[in-house]
């Protein structure tokens, strides 16, 4: 019982630390990514400014529930504080991330809510319609990621499915799996950037915006811990993954190569091939 409580406490502390650090790390990524794009570059701390200006009182339950789902998922991420959380595994983490968007959809703001129904060139249509349309691709990618790591480790517990460097750094399947999951991270990162950067901070619900930012960081940490085939400690590996994300966002932005749906569609295909290649 004592071990369980300590374990859960460490997990929640990890989630809190990730929540506090998420706007800084993502701000750094978007700052670097904007170097290759036209227009003024945002400050490293611009996400803190956005969150500071966001609506905090009288929010719909969906936004809060969405953040709680991502927060619990963040407590399960392996490697960072060495949390071995004992109330869930990779399948649960994946479903919590998917449920986060669903709860926001079901209990979020209504048609008139600017946070829920953003239309415009930067977002490419109604936010909830886009979320519904992308759900199958995101879910397929995440479930294939579970299968890819679960098949290799013969377990779904997150501390067990982390990348073990036993002579399997750069094999065909590890590269395919890493590339597939990175496509998912890339799509999530770009989606978060589009949702937050082009908008007035006062129109954002606080918990909803924080959930978006934290979700990208959780995916980034998962990529670093579970798929990134470089023999580095957890912290530097996460930073290297963030740097890679910034560079790819900058290059694709510079040459206008980015098509979010295409990247999202590539993720399950590459992960599918990685399982076959194992």
């Amino acid at each position, binding site marked *: 019982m004592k*071990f*369980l409580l300590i*374990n*859960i406490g460490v997990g929640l502390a990890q989630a809190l630390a990730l929540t506090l650090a998420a706007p800084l790390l993502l701000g750094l990524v978007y700052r670097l990514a904007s170097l290759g794009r036209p227009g003024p570059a945002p400050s490293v701390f611009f996400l803190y400014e956005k969150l500071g200006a966001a609506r*905090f*009182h*009288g*929010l*719909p*339950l969906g936004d*809060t529930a969405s*953040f*709680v789902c991502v927060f619990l998922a963040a407590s399960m991420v392996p490697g960072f504080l060495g949390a071995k959380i*004992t*109330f*869930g*595994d990779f*399948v649960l983490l994946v*479903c919590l991330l*998917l*449920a986060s*968007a*669903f709860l926001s*959809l*079901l*209990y*979020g*703001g*209504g*048609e*008139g809510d*600017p946070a*829920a129904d953003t239309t415009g060139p930067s977002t490419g249509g109604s936010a*909830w*319609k886009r*979320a*519904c349309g992308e*759900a*199958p*691709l995101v*879910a*397929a990618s995440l*479930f*294939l990621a579970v*299968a890819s790591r*679960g*098949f290799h480790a*013969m*377990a*779904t*517990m997150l501390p*067990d499915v982390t990348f073990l460097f036993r002579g399997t750094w750069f094999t065909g399947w590890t590269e395919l799996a890493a590339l597939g999951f990175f496509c998912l991270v890339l799509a999530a990162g770009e989606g978060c950037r589009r949702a937050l950067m082009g908008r*007035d901070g*006062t*129109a954002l619900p*606080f918990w909803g915006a924080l959930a978006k930012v934290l979700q990208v960081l959780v995916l980034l940490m998962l990529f670093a811990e579970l798929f990134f085939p470089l023999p580095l400690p957890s912290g530097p590996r996460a930073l290297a993954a963030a740097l890679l994300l910034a560079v790819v966002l900058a290059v694709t932005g510079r040459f206008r190569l980015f098509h979010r749906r295409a990247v999202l569609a590539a993720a*399950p295909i590459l992960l599918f091939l990685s*399982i*076959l290649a*194992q």
Partner: protein
Amino acid sequence: MKRAFAAPILLLVGACLFFLTGWAFTLYGGLALTAAGLAESLLAATQGWRQALRVDGKRFRAALALQEAGYIVTAAGLGCILLQYRNGALPFICFSAAALFLAHLILSLVGLVLATSKGGHRLALLCAADVPLTLGFAALWQLAQGALSLPVAEAASWSKAVLAVFFAVLGLTYGLRLGACGLYYRNACRAVGGAVGTGGSGAGKADGFFGLDLLAPFRFGEALAPLFLFLLGLFPFVLVSQVETLLLNARLPFPTGDYVGLIWGGTGRYAIYSPLILAVLFFALLALLDGLSGRGPTKKEGGRDA
């Protein structure tokens, strides 16, 4: 419109007949059953999406039920494949997943019969979407564990292909289900011209049966099925006792550890799902954060705090 359901229904009937003949209890029979189940769930999921776009509540719920039936057939097919490998423990993970899905299907159908609204109730949709803490998720979790034990039993390359296809279809159908439930709810709200209720500490503008709050009381008939789905999701004893017993006693080639307390939280190393701890943490955090943001003045539209 009726033809739209013909393919999944025919697949379901064919799979049931095939199972009853006993031919499914071979390797190729199990593979055929798995393929039929996956195809059926995929067809039903796409139908669910179509019905969500049309805001046809009855057919939407029927498509969700057919998708559940597809999962049952898939789980039975995987169980039949695993039966061939003389490891009595492994198939039971899949067969108990099928049993849980069956319980979920029956409760969903009971809910459909008792429902007085058109199935647009948020809590009913929440339970139908197999999100964590519900019975549907417990069944899905166990089905995933059963599928992951396939390469343990069979090291041949075809098992990887089956695993890859299974997880691709499972993810796709799960995403389609979540997306369709959200789409149906939003479209239904738009169709009746009502705003979506804010719930929680928000303005609380509940209108009709669509704007009901998460914790607000609602009609008994509608409440019954979601309540049971939620309670069975919190205490899935069939699932817990079986998985614990299997992992402790069945000499599975997984890294063994302490699996005691799957429901209360333990130090398991293969897989763990402790719905009770998750529920306590989820609702405690939700209450805390909702209370935190609920106090204080509400903002004017698009403006700063008053």
